[in-house]
């Protein structure tokens, strides 16, 4: 494995930088490191957080304190981390999950579908077809519990955010914000164009793991009818 680039995040974090741009190669490395840390966490490691081009690892400076008071806890932890990861081969492709997310597009669940289609000179059906016609990659989970940062939105339906953000967006709302698409797991304010809604719960605090999606998953949006939405919503309760 090539030399790794590290830098501190405050006094209890270390950032492992794996690339300068968002690409598949960097993503594969991040997934391999995440999988490794999941299975073999270092002692004194609090947790790890995968990003687009980084993996941030939180550690306990007390656990990595140099008894002689010479070396920095940060340097000691970095050396141990580097030593561990050196043995890691990035060729081992991890198993990739594909998660289908049912979405009722348009109508009361997707109040901005009309506007999005008009903006691009497409029909609503064409927008749905494009949005549900491909798999998206989950780069990371953040912003809110269970919120996936998805990569892969077709440029043909990339749409600027609403000029006036909504004060409350229903949980499960599927939106487009610029070149990004995503699902709001919780009721929250937001400026994305809402084109549909899923009956699936993306954040489940009572379950382990609490997030339906994980970094590295592939996501497909599957169009469903309003009746089907209602039915699934009932079952989910």
């Amino acid at each position, binding site marked *: 494995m090539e030399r790794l680039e590290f*830098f501190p*995040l405050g*006094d209890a*974090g270390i950032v492992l930088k794996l690339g300068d741009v968002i690409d598949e190669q960097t993503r594969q490395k991040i997934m391999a490191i995440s999988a490794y840390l999941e299975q073999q966490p270092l002692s004194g490691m609090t947790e790890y957080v995968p*990003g687009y081009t980084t993996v941030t690892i*939180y550690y306990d400076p007390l656990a990595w*304190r140099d008894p002689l008071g010479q070396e920095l806890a*940060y340097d000691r932890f970095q050396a141990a981390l580097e030593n561990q990861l050196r043995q890691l081969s990035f060729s081992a492709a991890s198993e990739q999950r594909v998660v289908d997310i049912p979405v009722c597009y348009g109508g009361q669940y997707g109040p901005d579908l009309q506007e999005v289609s008009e903006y691009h000179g497409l029909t609503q059906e064409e927008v749905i077809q494009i949005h549900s016609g491909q798999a998206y990659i989950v780069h990371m989970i953040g912003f809110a*519990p269970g919120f996936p940062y998805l990569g892969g939105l077709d440029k043909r339906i990339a749409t600027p955010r609403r000029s006036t953000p909504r004060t409350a967006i229903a949980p499960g709302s599927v939106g487009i914000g610029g070149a990004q698409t995503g699902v709001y797991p919780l009721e929250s304010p937001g400026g994305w164009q809402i084109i549909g809604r899923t009956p699936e719960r993306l954040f489940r605090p009572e379950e382990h793991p609490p997030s339906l999606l994980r970094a590295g998953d592939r996501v497909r949006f599957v169009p469903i009818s309003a009746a089907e939405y209602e039915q699934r919503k009932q079952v989910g309760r």
Partner: protein
Amino acid sequence: MSVEVISPGLFTTVQDLGRYGYQRHGVHVNGAMDALALRVANLLVGNEPDAAVLELTMKGPALRFHQDVLVAVCGADMQPVLDERRLRRNRPVLVQSGSVLRFGHAREGCRAYLAIAGGFDVPLVMNSRSTNVRAKFGGAWGRALAETDRLSLGKPGKKNVRLARQLQDRSVNRADSFCEADWFVPQSFFPYPQQKDAVVRVMPGAESELFTAQSRRDFWTTPYQISVQSDRMGYRLHGPELALNEPVELISSAVSAGTIQVPPSGMPIVLLADRQTVGGYPKIGHVATVDLPILAQLRPHDRVQFQQVTLRAAQQAWYEQEKALAELETGIELYLGGRSKR
């Protein structure tokens, strides 16, 4: 067997040391803003360091105890009154069932912590009892306390019982509804500033070099004011505008408690307990973990001066704080007589 909320105060939540291990699922850490006050309050009543306490903000609640309880209050001075008598901070107090504890407005500081022997017994969610108000889970019903809420307490352990017994034995006036310990932790144990201008230690962040020389000078030499748009998520600051040498489009990555990020407005934001897990703004610095309690006790309009330190200095200060806490714990053990038999 519970604590009844007569009036909830401005914003009172159940918190512990935080919810770690789930940030990769986007789950906020939460936990006490002033972790030092939480830990000392827990020590004073014989709790484990991660026991759940109440965090009180600006104006505290009124609570009725439906059982005998051993309590301690640390942090901001909200002039607590127990059955018409002032309750002093930073010491264990044994309170009789039926008593009412009323907090007022914070005279100094912003957040007070009420620890009760046994801890607040709310469900563990993802290994923590901290309240996540935004996502509505954890703590007491995933929200701040409300009138008529009833909170149960955990079963006191050996240490809790030993402390309570000692207080009972030394009690001079048994007619009182409560008895205070004759020993306490001096307020000087805490790093809170004496004057209005607080100084917190800050390590330069990964993007600090991207800011103009003038901005960097301003950041390290001019005090910033805490704005009214400040809460447990973060403090928005007012002061000299911080400009980048040239615009940058950063790729979002993890942020932590104390991260100081600068959005395009040029006004820095210090991320705190309820921060989101990732962010995409340039990071000009990180507040040393040991100095987060200082920030936790500042209020809107207070000012803070950032002092540049190295990572080594920040971690050294961390060790010193742990040493002081360990000494405090040993001191309490010795005072109680007889070493703890664990």
